[in-house]
């Protein structure tokens, strides 16, 4: 059974169909790419999958449950996490606290234990601290744990955003242009990180990316979106040789 299944997904803004009849499936542990020209509706798809926008038509099932009626935080709790095109960290919080916000649901001590400083509270906080540090370690951010997030260099901010998303212990991770604004070295490093994340956390990943080398290099399958509808779906090889895709997208790109 597919981990995530979107059927006939659509949303209209005013008269404009931003996404129309979008069908998509992703299995556990897969790494898919979502590509398409600017304005094709890629980020809108992410917003639909994470509950930021409510679809005007269609169904989304995640882990066997319909999720379109759920709030974004409930969907996150269920196991879909994401990053943003334009990095949205909690800028004035420390690096580790950013991750700790993602770990919110990993502990469930309530308000009173926090005020009374019960053993349960300390255990919870210690567990959160430990998990946060181990996540930061994965991304080589441990030494920056107590630095204000906005003081991190750009590439590290992108990594921190992924770390925060992973902190919610997702089954599916949505990455919105993780390589945007990175130089080739940073992008190569990011590719390694993404591969590592998938292996280490054994999760499915769907990523939006304009960097074709990255997408073609690591994705098992690729969805091509054009004018809000699926233009093609297949392996990188198939996509590269699909004349429609070449005409709509790759042809314009290079």
């Amino acid at each position, binding site marked *: 059974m597919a981990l995530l299944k979107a059927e006939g997904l659509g949303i209209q803004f005013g008269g404009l169909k931003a996404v129309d009849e979008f069908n998509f499936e992703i299995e556990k542990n897969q790494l898919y790419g979502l590509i398409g020209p600017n304005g094709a509706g890629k980020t809108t798809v992410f917003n639909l999958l994470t509950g930021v926008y409510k679809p005007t038509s269609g169904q989304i099932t995640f882990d066997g449950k319909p999720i379109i009626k759920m709030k974004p935080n409930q969907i996150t709790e269920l196991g879909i996490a994401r990053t943003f095109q334009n990095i949205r960290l909690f800028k004035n919080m420390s690096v580790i606290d950013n991750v700790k916000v993602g770990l*919110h649901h990993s502990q469930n001590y309530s308000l009173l234990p926090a005020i009374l400083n019960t053993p349960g509270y*300390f255990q919870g*906080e210690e567990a959160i*601290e430990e998990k946060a540090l181990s996540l930061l370690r994965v991304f080589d951010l441990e030494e920056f744990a107590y630095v204000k997030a906005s003081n991190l260099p750009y590439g590290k901010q992108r990594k921190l955003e992924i770390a925060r998303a992973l902190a919610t212990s997702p089954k599916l991770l949505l990455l919105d242009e993780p390589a945007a604004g990175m130089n080739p070295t940073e992008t190569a490093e990011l590719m390694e990180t993404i591969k590592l994340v998938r292996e280490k956390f054994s999760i499915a990943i769907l990523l939006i990316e304009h960097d074709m080398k990255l997408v073609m290099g690591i994705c098992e399958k690729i969805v091509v979106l054009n004018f809000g509808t699926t233009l093609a779906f297949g392996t990188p090889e198939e996509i590269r040789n699909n004349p429609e895709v070449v005409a709509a997208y790759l042809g314009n790109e290079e």
Partner: protein
Amino acid sequence: MKKQQIKQFMISLIISLVIYGALMFSMNNGIISSYWSRIMITACINIVLATSLNLASGYLGQLTLGHAGFMSVGAYIAALASIHLQTPFIISLIIGAIVAAVIGLIIGMPTLRLKGDYLCIITLAFNEIIRVIMLNLKITNGARGLIGMPMSTDFTSAFISVVVTIYVIYCIVKSRHGRAIISIKEDETASELAGIPTFYYKIMAFVISAFFAGIAGGLYAHYNGILVPVSFDYNKSVEILVMVVLGGLGNLKGSVVAAIVMTFLPELLRSFSDYRMLLYAVVLIATMIIKEKNLMPHIKEKFSKKEVVEEVAE
């Protein structure tokens, strides 16, 4: 972490006891006159008000202009409980605070759902309505003022309230709940997508903030001996806001210092009293512009990076 936190707690406790002991000793031996010891109680009430508003406006980032309204609810309810039900002082305080919290819940439910600046206007409106209600109700004795409650607030009870308020808010802010609250201020959408039930936490912070405003009101009622609605008008709300802004949004220590300064300074500058509120207005505008334009980068750089983070996170 546990050891560190307990150590910190013990140090804070000892410091509080020392401050309390020194002040009590000075008051009992006439080093501090009874005039100034009364003002110290006012300072305590203001600290409770400023730190609790800081939770809603500084940490959560939701600007409210009705803090004096919640204070007045706490004040009147606590006073009425003492007068009519003869409840013990502490029970009156708690009843007042709970009612203030419930009203906070009622106001927060419809408004905190919305993004934007509606809360500010609605709380201001609430402040006005509550003042008019207190002015017109029979049981509050309107503009002539409510009297008859025992003058139970002394320096000890005011001081304990301050310690409890700061302690509780500090503990909340340090916990996973506090991080959730701060993340909402930083970026509500990102917070929601990190799994935080943002609406729930907005309500929580707002209601706790109202609760402590209610405590401050109860203290005020049993200290002043008379309640008139005009003491809880828009001006009082702005005064509390100025304390929070001056001390720094999301900075508890700053709120404490600002509340103390803003209680004592007007007493020292009595001849200047006509211009006090004018000064508050200028302080509000200037603080915001100076801070946002980063006119003080050098001062900030003096702190190490870690301290800058702590300043925001605590």
